[in-house]
């Protein structure tokens, strides 16, 4: 089956055969093959179909720039669409399928679109599919979408894992070709920390593709020897199969390591891929060059291949892509392929060079090999449906002739691979000397060497590489030992000018994958889409999966010629990360599924879990939502029971998630006066006060309590959601606004586990729990008292505060004692019928009490809106005071906090409903506010709600509607005070 495998000493291991399938058919290759080289070896030429016209396509390149040979790799949940056969390392059992074809690759019905090609020109869809208007979504677009896309996503969760890692180095070398190896070696020998990355699994770059000599050895041998020395240096890290795909600010490089893509499935505990963030003090970019196709009729047919790729297959993989190969070139490098083929004793049909004059040495060498040469000639077209069998050539005298060949190797010269030099905004510069763009102004920490810098000779690559590596190391304090220059076999410094062709018969493709032809570019120019960006966007040139690596410059040169401009003036499309496409999962790393965000657990979590609690996500926290008893299947039953227990006996709730901040210093009181809208400095030691915090724009930011433990010592509490935000706010006030104050703030949220103990029997419970540790009698420890004391040999704090509206306390203990403490509370309360309650019951009781929470503190409410306007102190300045006085924040029709109860008390309310007057039409201009929080109150046996109602303060007992069309509800309610329960607060003080 291995029809095209030839003898030779390439980089495949003939002792390790590998079998794989393509479109279900079994093939064989060797360790060291890519899927592309193995398919070529097996004589497979038709590999895929193009995007628009479904033209048959083969293998164009031998690298990551491949636009044509894309396959669906693997199967099931591991299926990967659009995988480049040219960089897919062969492994045992590899499954590949052709894509974007139906029913089969050889017979693809989609190819009928090719018949419509005269209509399907660039931008045709902008000119049609407009009538009738309703047809776009129903008829036209579905048809377009059926044809859209290339390969298929798996539609299943990716079963593999991914991870992220960080690396730091003095010198990062990108590319392990001759220039990169030389750079890494000189930097590495200096003792600097060096990282060398290459996307390939084999180092050496073009040394594996071209038969070159360094110091008398084959180039590939030198590469392996150099690789081995680098591997032996302790401060050098070699990262093969690793693509540096993006350059970011702060010398940060994004790289993808394909850890397991060359094996059937990842080994245990190995990720499929690892996403590296590399921080490098200096960078040497040695990313090589990419060969330019030529634009001529039929240049997309299977069997037309880049001349450099032909050499790669020949020398590295010992595969000849054909038996009789013609060459079409406009530069000297293409001739090397002729020589290489002749050397491998492959029949070279002809070397066709578009130029009239070439270096005599080239002619001599061709003559020596008996290769026919045609100068000043052009290929006009290629023939045969599924692969090249002949070419139509026009010679220098205008004669057309047919040349039989099964493969056409083409070369339009090489483009330095400047992509990574431009990610930070540097624009490439046109070099007339090599007819290509080279790196422009570089950031000071980056140098570019070898072919990437337009230095195409091997000696030049080695020398510029070594010098740049040495210089990079030196600039960060490492001196490399002197080294001699390498001896390299003789080479022509070949001309590399840009030639875009002119004549063609048949479609001449510029962007292969997207089927953008020379005619499309001409049409775009006629229609005024002449800038590089407009051209790209109008024709889709360069937007395919190769991002224009093989097409952009040709396209720009053609449009420049069509519009009488210089290619240099047209500029290039900015290269953007990623350099080659990167799996989304790799960028996410381990942060997916349940590990998307970390979980925060309170000290009482295990206890609550053992009690069978249902948990709810509260930001990163998991909090007990309710504690169902055996037999309770519906949340409302559990919650009603918990509320009733708190209102009649006693309950305990884990409130450890609330933010707790320790504020100390001589100016602590003055500081808190500026932070809070109400007065704090007048609070007595041993007392607690409610505190309301505004943003500087006058809106309420957060609320909580402030406890004064000592003259210069306060404990501030925040809501769970705003704990980090308030901490940052206090640090801002302390460090930025008022740095002269003597105040110190420390988060103590994690130090203390805190439990609310609430209900008429809570004091009894505490007496039993604390014994002599603290006198909790109403006289000794009245409402809003606080105390620090010692309990069971450890510090404890007690606050007499209540969110539920009952006689209540919050007990804080060191978090390590948190679980024991809640168990002790339950034990002490056992005969008092204590129940644990969760956030739902907490929510019901705070609504019954009319306390505001997250739904009301939504960042657009003022203190006055919340009915807390009288808290704003007039005796001092505080954050938010002045801007809260703006007219818009004091408009008389602003919605303010009210309570509502349904006229039919069992009718369910839904938060998010809007308030309307009884007779009003549902329209925005009649909107009078909305319902923010609702609950079924077991205490009052009715649904209740809090909401914001326009002029609500003056609308007591009015009937209005809660309009809720998204839930098909419209409920008549009565406006009440927001406090439904114990409005005088008698129970708090009892």
């Amino acid at each position, binding site marked *: 089956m291995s029809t095209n495998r030839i003898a030779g000493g390439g980089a495949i291991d003939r002792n390790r055969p590998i079998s794989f399938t393509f479109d279900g058919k079994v093939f064989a290759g060797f360790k060291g093959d890519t899927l592309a080289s193995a398919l070529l070896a097996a004589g497979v030429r038709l590999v895929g179909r193009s995007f628009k016209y479904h033209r048959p396509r083969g293998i164009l390149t031998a690298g990551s720039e491949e636009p044509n040979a894309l396959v669906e790799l693997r199967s099931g949940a591991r299926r990967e669409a*659009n995988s480049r056969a040219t960089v897919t390392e062969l492994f045992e059992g590899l499954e590949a399928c052709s894509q974007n074809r139906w029913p089969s690759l050889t017979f693809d019905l989609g190819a009928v679109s090719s018949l419509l090609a*005269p*209509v399907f*020109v660039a931008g045709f*869809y*902008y*000119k049609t599919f*407009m009538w009738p*208007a309703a047809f*776009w979504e129903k008829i036209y*677009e579905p048809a377009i*979408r059926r044809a859209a*896309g290339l390969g298929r*996503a*798996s539609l*299943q969760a*990716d079963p*593999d894992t*991914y991870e992220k890692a960080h690396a730091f180095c003095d010198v990062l070398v990108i590319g392990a070709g001759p220039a990169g190896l030389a750079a890494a070696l000189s930097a590495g020998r200096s003792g600097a920390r060096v990282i060398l990355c290459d996307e390939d699994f084999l180092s050496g770059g073009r040394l594996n593709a071209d038969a070159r000599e360094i110091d008398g050895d084959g180039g590939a041998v030198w590469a392996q020897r150099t690789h081995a020395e680098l591997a032996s240096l302790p401060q050098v890290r070699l990262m093969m199969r690793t693509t540096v795909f993006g350059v*970011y600010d702060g010398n940060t490089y*994004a790289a993808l390591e394909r850890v397991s893509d060359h094996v059937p499935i990842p080994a245990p505990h190995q990720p499929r891929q690892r996403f590296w963030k590399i921080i490098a003090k200096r960078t040497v970019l040695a990313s090589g060059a990419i060969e330019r196709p030529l634009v001529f009729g039929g240049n997309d047919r299977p069997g037309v291949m880049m001349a450099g790729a032909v050499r790669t297959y020949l020398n590295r993989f010992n595969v000849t892509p054909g038996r009789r190969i013609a060459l079409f070139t406009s530069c000297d490098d293409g001739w090397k392929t002729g020589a290489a083929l002749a050397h491998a004793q492959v029949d070279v049909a002809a070397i066709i060079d578009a130029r009239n004059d070439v270096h005599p040495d080239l002619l001599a060498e061709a003559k020596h090999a008996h290769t026919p040469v045609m100068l000043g000639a052009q290929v006009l077209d290629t023939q045969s449906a599924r692969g090249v069998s002949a070419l139509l050539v026009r010679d220098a005298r205008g004669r057309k002739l047919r040349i039989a060949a099964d493969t056409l190797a083409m070369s339009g010269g090489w483009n330095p691979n400047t992509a990574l030099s431009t990610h*930070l905004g540097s624009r490439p510069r046109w070099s007339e000397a090599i007819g290509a763009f080279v790196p422009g102004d570089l950031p000071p920490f980056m140098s570019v060497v070898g072919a990437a810098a337009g230095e195409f000779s091997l000696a030049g690559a080695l020398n510029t590489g070594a010098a740049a590596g040495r210089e990079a190391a030196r600039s960060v304090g490492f001196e490399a030992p002197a080294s001699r220059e390498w001896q390299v076999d003789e080479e022509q410094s070949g001309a590399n000018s840009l030639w875009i062709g002119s004549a063609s018969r048949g479609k001449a493709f510029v962007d292969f994958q997207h089927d953008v032809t020379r005619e499309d570019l001409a*049409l775009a120019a006629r229609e005024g*889409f002449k*800038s590089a*960006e*407009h051209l790209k*966007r109008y024709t889709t040139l360069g937007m395919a999966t190769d*991002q224009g690596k093989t097409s952009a410059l040709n396209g720009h040169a053609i449009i420049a010629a069509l519009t009488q401009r210089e290619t240099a003036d047209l500029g290039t499309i900015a290269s*953007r*990360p*990623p350099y080659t*496409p990167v*799996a989304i*999962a790799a960028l996410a*790393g381990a*942060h997916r*599924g*349940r*590990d*998307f*965000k970390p*979980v925060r657990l309170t000290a009482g979590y295990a206890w609550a879990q053992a009690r069978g609690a249902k948990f709810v996500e509260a930001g990163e926290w998991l909090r007990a939502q309710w504690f169902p008893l055996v037999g309770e299947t519906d949340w409302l039953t559990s919650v009603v029971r918990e509320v009733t227990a708190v209102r009649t006996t006693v309950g305990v709730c884990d409130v450890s998630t609330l933010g707790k901040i320790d504020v100390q210093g001589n100016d602590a009181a003055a500081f808190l006066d500026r932070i809070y809208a109400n007065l704090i400095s007048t609070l007595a030691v041993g007392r607690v006060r409610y505190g309301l915090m505004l*943003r500087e724009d006058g*809106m309420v930011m957060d609320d909580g309590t402030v406890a004064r433990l000592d003259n210069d010592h306060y404990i501030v509490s925040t809501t769970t959601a705003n704990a980090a935000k308030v901490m940052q706010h206090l640090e801002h006030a302390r460090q930025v606004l008022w740095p002269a104050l003597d105040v110190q703030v420390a988060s103590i949220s994690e130090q203390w586990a805190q439990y609310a103990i609430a209900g008429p029997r809570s004091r009894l419970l505490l007496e039993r729990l604390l014994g002599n540790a603290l006198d909790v009698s109403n006289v000794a420890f009245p409402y809003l008292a606080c105390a620090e004391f010692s309990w069971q040999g450890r510090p404890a704090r007690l606050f007499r505060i209540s969110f539920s509206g009952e006689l209540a306390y919050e007990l804080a203990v060191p978090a390590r004692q948190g679980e024991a403490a809640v168990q002790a509370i339950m034990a002490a309360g056992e005969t008092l019928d204590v129940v644990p309650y969760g956030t739902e019951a907490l929510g019901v009781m705070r609504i019954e009490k009319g306390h505001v929470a*997250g739904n009301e503190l939504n*960042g*657009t409410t003022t203190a006055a809106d919340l009915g807390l306007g009288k808290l704003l102190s007039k005796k001092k300045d505080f954050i938010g005071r002045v801007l809260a006085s*703006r*007219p*818009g924040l004091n408009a008389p029709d602003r919605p303010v906090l009210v309570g509502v109860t349904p006229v039919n008390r069992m009718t369910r309310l839904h938060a*998010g*409903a*809007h308030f309307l007057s009884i007779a009003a039409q*549902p*329209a*925005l201009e009649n*909107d009078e506010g909305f319902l923010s929080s609702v609950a079924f109150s077991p205490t009052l046996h009715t649904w209740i709600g809090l909401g914001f109602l326009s002029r609500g303060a003056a609308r007591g007992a009015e009937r209005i509607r809660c309009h809720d*069309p*998204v839930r098909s509800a419209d409920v008549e309610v009565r406006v009440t005070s927001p406090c439904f329960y114990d409005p005088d607060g008698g129970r708090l003080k009892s």
Partner: protein
Amino acid sequence: MRYSIFNLLRQALAGHSGWGPAWRDAEPKRSYDVIIVGGGGHGLATAHYLAKVYGIHNVAVLEKSWLGSGNAGRNTTIIRSNYLLPGNNPFYELSMKLWEGLEQDLNYNTMVSQRGVLNLFHSDAQRDAYARRGNAMRMHGVDAELLDQAAVRRMLPFLDFEGARFPIQGGLLQRRGGTARHDAVVWGYARAASDRGVDIIQNCEVNGFLRDGARITGVRTTRGDIQAAKVGIAVAGNTSRVASLASLRLPIESHVLQAFVSEAIKPFISCVVTFGAGHFYISQSDKGGLVFGGDIDGYNSYAQRGNLPMVEDVCQSGMALMPALGRVRVLRSWGGIMDMTMDGSPIIDRAPLEGLYINAGWCYGGFKATPASGYCFAHLLARGERHETARAYRLDRFATGHLLDEKGQGPQPNLH
């Protein structure tokens, strides 16, 4: 030539040699009735409606680079009118109505695709906030549906319904929302405006204003001075820079927003989906690429590129929402510069200088607003008074406290 299937077929037979430029590449005249600074979607739409609706044809659109080179060509193409506040909702609904008739209005297929916009919610509080927004939409006659988890699962079965850290509870769906082809919007407006006599001038950068005392009388450009009775600026991302040429300070910060497109894959995501437990939105283009993005990077920038933390954040959210995205590859990322205002809502208003008008502050929601923004800005320029659906977009609202803060984040632009 009119765009139609008949002309397309006729041209197909003629090798498409008969198509002329989509718009005239005009040379600047010495004066105009109105100059629009900024050849993006908003500026071109303004010119179109000035000519078509308000009969003002002597108009120039000045673009410093190529048409659509700013955010018009750098967005994620989403259109929707699912807003909460009464100052926003009618405006975006006007925009949606204009989208719905845009192809016929412009004789240009902008590929408006009303395939639905679904905002997922993951908690009771979020559900209630979305219900509140959906109800506001319904009260203005805008379509909105609150879906439960089962309904979401029927639409998008490949979302993570099993192992999610923040389980999907349901979603708010606006079926009339969707996407449009962003570049086509620019080109369509340019062509339509040009056909009505508007001069479209590319590579013409404004570097100063001509003044007569406190009055603006024209602009100074890289292609000479140009007089105008009225000058409107629509240069989102660069508003502060251009306004500073007139010594104006505005409540705007420039921030970078990154966006991403994947390789083209066979369509499987039918609508626009937003994740509610992180900042992430995604849709699939008619070419097959997944177009997605997340939050702004969070710092002032004019660099049109962002950094890795946000790239990672976006992809993490994507994976948390759709684990089937894992092996789909990001093809390209880019950055646009957003005009972030201090309340997250835009400004369409007179400047404090006579003759100068401002259309700015679109945050990262400018694309969907393009038609209505152009319409209302044209109204302001033509009539000298605010259009009724844009009357909340006053410049002085920050000073007076009549804020339009959908998210409640206050004067902190990187949080909107």
